[in-house]
Structure formats: structure tokens, C-alpha cells
């Protein structure tokens, strides 16, 4: 079937303003502005920068993981296990440390645990070519279960010296936020300016074409799963420091929030599109929305409902925008 046209030789390019502004990140930014305005109407506390920052530290760890998750989704896969990974790595870390291992070594053990979890996801999804959606649902249950075995019903305490990462302020900004921004900057640069980043988009857009172009699709995907594993572990350990103790149900249900951040940021679930900037904005949007709701004394119940509605609205909007920009 032929598909060329003499009449269609030259489709005019979209005007620059269209390219820059008609995209999911704009939607997210708009929502942030609306959220800020709405929330400040609800409560004057809200416009206190410190207050907002302190709120963000509560979900900083998940936000960092969401950044890497974004990359995984752009490459055409999905991983629902990072929250369970965080919990298990944190439990492993706390447990070996409690058993006597010196702190730095315990951290390493925790990170290695996360790496192993990422490796299992990679093995089953890429090497065994199973759908990553069902694999990571399986590993999510498995890792959470292992955390339950290790920690049981109790909280494992973490040594005093390790606690309080969120209290460390650099130029008045809590450390977790700094780490988030550094991570966002780094990953954003990788995704936006390096070859690997470019290739991640290409793999997600058309894996067959990527293969034909000589791109190492399998290696890159495995690398992403491993990275997500390690970063989840690091995030879990950060959470341990913030909370002072670890339980098996750390960030239970957190996968929802991470996926929400990615989707709100304009990541396309089928791969090939999405940005770190978008997810970054979405993370802040979520903080503003959650904090605003808390300040308005909305019950956690309603907050949950709102999150669900947000996710649905976000994908409808993202799909709509992508349909408009692709003729």
C-alpha cells in the first residue's frame, strides 16, 4: 500500500510556541499554579516556603524513585515494585545494622539488596521476555512479603547518628530536597543530552527500529531496571533516616503515587515520551495538592479519592495532548 502524496510534500512545522507550550508539562505547571492559588485561599500558612519544603521532604524519597521510574516507562517497560523495594532494602539495612554490622557496611548491604531486586525484575522481564507489568506485580508482592518476614510486625530502630536526614539543612533547604534536585538535574541531563538518554526514547518509540539501528535495546533496559533497583534502595534507606525506624509497611501502596507522578508529568504509558522535568513538576504538584488538602482538613480518605481522580484526569489529558501533536 502506497502512502506518499504529491500534495502532502511539505507539512508545515508546528509553530515554535506550539511546540514549547502545548505539552503535558504545561498542563502540570498550570495545575501547580491552580493548586497554589486554591491552597492559599484555604490557608495562609500555605504560602510559607519553608512549610512547603518541609511537606515535600515527606515524599522526597518516592519522588526520587519516580524520576528513575519515568525513564523505565519511557523505554517501554513498567515497574510496580519500587515501593516494595524501598521497604525491603530499608528493612535489610536496618536489620543487618541491628545485628551488629557497622553503619556504612549496612548501607552497602541495603543497596546491594536493591540491586538484586532490580536484577530479578530485569531477568524476568528482559531475559525471559515476560510482560514487565505482571512480573513486577509478582515481585512487588514478593519483596513486600520478604520485608514482612525480616521485620515482622515490629519497627526496627535505626541508630541515633543516622536519624534526621531531613533536618540537615543546606542553605536552609532540607537535604532530601537537595538530593532530589541533584538527582533530577543529573537524570534530566542524561535523558536530555546524552546518547543513552536519546536511545531510551528511541527504544520506547519503536523497539524494532531501535534494534535495526544498532541500538543495544536489551542492555539499556536491563541497566534501567538495575538503576531503579539501586535508587529505590537508597530511597528506602533515606526514609529510614527520616523516620528513625523501619517497618515492613513502609510506603505501602507507594507504587500508586510514583506512577501518578510519572503520569501527571506527561509520561506516556506506552513509552517514547515523557520528561524528567514533567515528573519533577508533578512531584511538587502532588505535594501541593496533598498539603493543601491536609491544611483544608480534608480527611486522608478524600485525599485518596482526589489522587485517584487526578490520575485518571492526567492520563486522559496526556493522551489528548499527544493525539493533538501527532498528526
Amino acid at each position, binding site marked *: 500500500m502506497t502512502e506518499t502524496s504529491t500534495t502532502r510534500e511539505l507539512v508545515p512545522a508546528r509553530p515554535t510556541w506550539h511546540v514549547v507550550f502545548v505539552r503535558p508539562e504545561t498542563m502540570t505547571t498550570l495545575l501547580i499554579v491552580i493548586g497554589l492559588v486554591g491552597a492559599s485561599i484555604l490557608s495562609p500558612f500555605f504560602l510559607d516556603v519553608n512549610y512547603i519544603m518541609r511537606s515535600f521532604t515527606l515524599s522526597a524519597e518516592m519522588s526520587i524513585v519516580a524520576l528513575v521510574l519515568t525513564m523505565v516507562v519511557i523505554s517501554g517497560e*513498567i515497574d510496580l515494585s519500587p515501593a516494595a523495594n524501598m521497604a525491603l532494602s530499608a528493612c535489610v539495612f536496618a536489620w543487618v545494622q541491628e545485628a551488629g554490622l557497622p553503619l556504612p557496611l549496612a548501607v552497602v548491604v541495603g543497596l546491594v539488596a536493591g540491586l538484586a531486586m532490580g536484577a530479578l525484575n530485569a531477568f524476568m522481564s528482559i531475559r525471559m521476555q515476560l510482560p*514487565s*507489568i*505482571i512480573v513486577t506485580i509478582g515481585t512487588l508482592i*514478593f519483596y513486600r512479603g520478604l520485608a514482612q518476614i525480616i521485620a*515482622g510486625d515490629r519497627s526496627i530502630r535505626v541508630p541515633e547518628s543516622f536519624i534526621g536526614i531531613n533536618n540537615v539543612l543546606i542553605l536552609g533547604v532540607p537535604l532530601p530536597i537537595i538530593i532530589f534536585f541533584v538527582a533530577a538535574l543529573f537524570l534530566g541531563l542524561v535523558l536530555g543530552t546524552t546518547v543513552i538518554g536519546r536511545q531510551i526514547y528511541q527504544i520506547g518509540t519503536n523497539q524494532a527500529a531501535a534494534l535495526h539501528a544498532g541500538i543495544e535495546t536489551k542492555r539499556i533496559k536491563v541497566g534501567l531496571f538495575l538503576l531503579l533497583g539501586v535508587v529505590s534502595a537508597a530511597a528506602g534507606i533515606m526514609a529510614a533516616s527520616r523516620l528513625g525506624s523501619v517497618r515492613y509497611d513502609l510506603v505501602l501502596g507507594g507504587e500508586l503515587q510514583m506512577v501518578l507522578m510519572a503520569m501527571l508529568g506527561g509520561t506516556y*504509558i*506506552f513509552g517514547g515520551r515523557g520528561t524528567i522535568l514533567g515528573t519533577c513538576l508533578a512531584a511538587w504538584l502532588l505535594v501541593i495538592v496533598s498539603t493543601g488538602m491536609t491544611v483544608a482538613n480534608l480527611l486522608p480518605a478524600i485525599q485518596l479519592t482526589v489522587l485517584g*481522580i487526578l490520575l*485518571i484526569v492526567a492520563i486522559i489529558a496526556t493522551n489528548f495532548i499527544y493525539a493533538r501533536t501527532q498528526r
Partner: protein
Amino acid sequence: MNVLGSIFFRRESGILVMIILFCLAVGLYKPQFLTLSSLRIILLLTPLIMIGAMAQMLVLVARHVDLSIGSMLGFSAMVVGLMYREFPEIWWMVGFPVAILTGATLGLFNGLLVTIFKLPSIIVTLGTLSLYRGLTFIISDARQINRSVIPTELKVMSRTSPVFDIPWIILIAFGIAVMAYFVARHTQFGRQIYALGSNPKAAPLRGIDVTKVTLVVFALAGALSGLAGILYASRWGFVNPSNTGAGFEFQVIAAVVIGGVSINGGVGTVMGTVLGVLLLGCVSAALPLLGIPGSTQNAIFGAVILVALLIDRTVRHRGVASVSGGAA
């Protein structure tokens, strides 16, 4: 069934063998596992999962996923619970149609989002998972429905029975399984679900109304979740906004994956799913007997899912992961 029909049954026999081997192994160590009362315990663990598994099976066969069945269960249970509390005079059986219709409405909403907006079911149901759970909290004012509110007749369904000392609740669950078998195998609708999941592109070419079938599948999944909701109230005697149905979808997915249902659609049998549920029931029942703490259950379930997937891959050599990781 003729000789070659056994191709369809190979997996089911495999699961059955595993169940037998497992029970024998446990029985060797703790003989009381192989008693009738033990069987009763096993069966009592399963009815809700059984019903949920039937729902999820149909959705998966149609090449979709429904992660919200636990929340639909919770919401329906709560609606029924509230009804009993506000209208204590009402005939207890009214709860059933109320629960089922509530669930069906929620399921229909899922289906509409998937068909009208062409959104991937995985993300839609991840969203409605929270939405419905949140709504459950809202309508209940975050308070639980206590034992005293649930009608005695309902609670008693989990204990008394008309025949062989098998509680009503188990009979209902197996009855649903039988109906699911009938629908899947002997109705036009069932065959169209399999066709749709097997080759979504060819389905419209063969006269299948994709929108209608998809909507009905999701509504059905909701209805079954609603039924499971009222049976939850029956079994446990109370409804709690945060716990009721939480984690349900994961147990259900474990059962369904073991039962041989494929995430790529078009493949899966009721018999396999039932056996999957039974295997998990045996494992859950064996744990306390063997002195293994209940906290290991999730780890074991997760491991079982992964092993089942690996066995599938090495034995069947089918179902190469789609590029989107099966999220489509």
C-alpha cells in the same frame, strides 16, 4: 474429551498434581492436614478469592487488567453495611442485589474509561483503586460497620449449610465458578471475550462488538467484586473502610497466574483458576500448621507467581512480552 483435548488440560493436571504433592508432603509432617476439617478450613479461606479470581480471569482473557477489584469489594461491602445500619428493618437478602449492582456500576465506570477514552486498563484501574477506596472512606465517615449491624442470617451463611456441612458461602463461590465456566465456554459472550483477547484487531472483522463486550466484562468484574463484598461481611462479620478488600487484588492475581491465565489475553480456563485458588488455599492453611508465621504468606504468594510465570515461559514458549511491557 478426546485425546487431543488433553492439550487444553495439561496445565490443569499440572496444578492438580502440585496440589496433591503439596498436601501429601505437609500431611507426612502433620497428618492432621489431611482431615476433613482441615479441608473445610482450606475451603473457607477461598470463597472470596474464588469469586474475585473469576472476575479477574474474564478481564485478563479479554486482554485487560483490573487492579480495582479489592476497592470495588470494599465499597460494595460498605454500601451494604451502611444500608443495614440505616435500615435495620430491611430484609437481609436485599443486601445481595444492592452489593452486586453497586459493584456492577463501579465496574461499568472502569469499562467506560477504557472504551470511551481508549485508556490502558492498567492505569485506569490503578486510579479507580484509590478513587473507590477513598469513596469508601467518605461514605462511611471513616468508621467501621460493626458486627452488631450485620444481620445474623448473613453471618450465619458462613457457618451453616444445607448439605454435607459445607457452608453456604463456599457453595456460592463454587456456584459462581460453575456459572463462570458456563459463560466462558458455552455462551456467545464468553467466546467473544476469548476472541477479543486472542486477536483484538481481528475481532471487529469477525463481527464482535468490541465496545459492548469490553463494557460487559468490566461491569461483570465489578458485579462479582460486589458479591464478594457482601460475602466478606458474611464471613468476617464487619466492614472496615481501610482493610476490607485491601490487598485482595494481589491474592487474586496470584491465583489467576498460577491457574494459567495469560496477561496477553485469550488464554485461561475456569478449571485452572479454581485449582490455582485451591493451591493457594492449601498453602495458606498449611502455614499455621507448620508453625510458619502468617507474615510469610505474601512472600510465598509472590514467589509462587514468579515461579508460575517462569514455568509458563519455559514450557509454552509463547507470549513474547509486548513492547509496552504488557501495559497496553
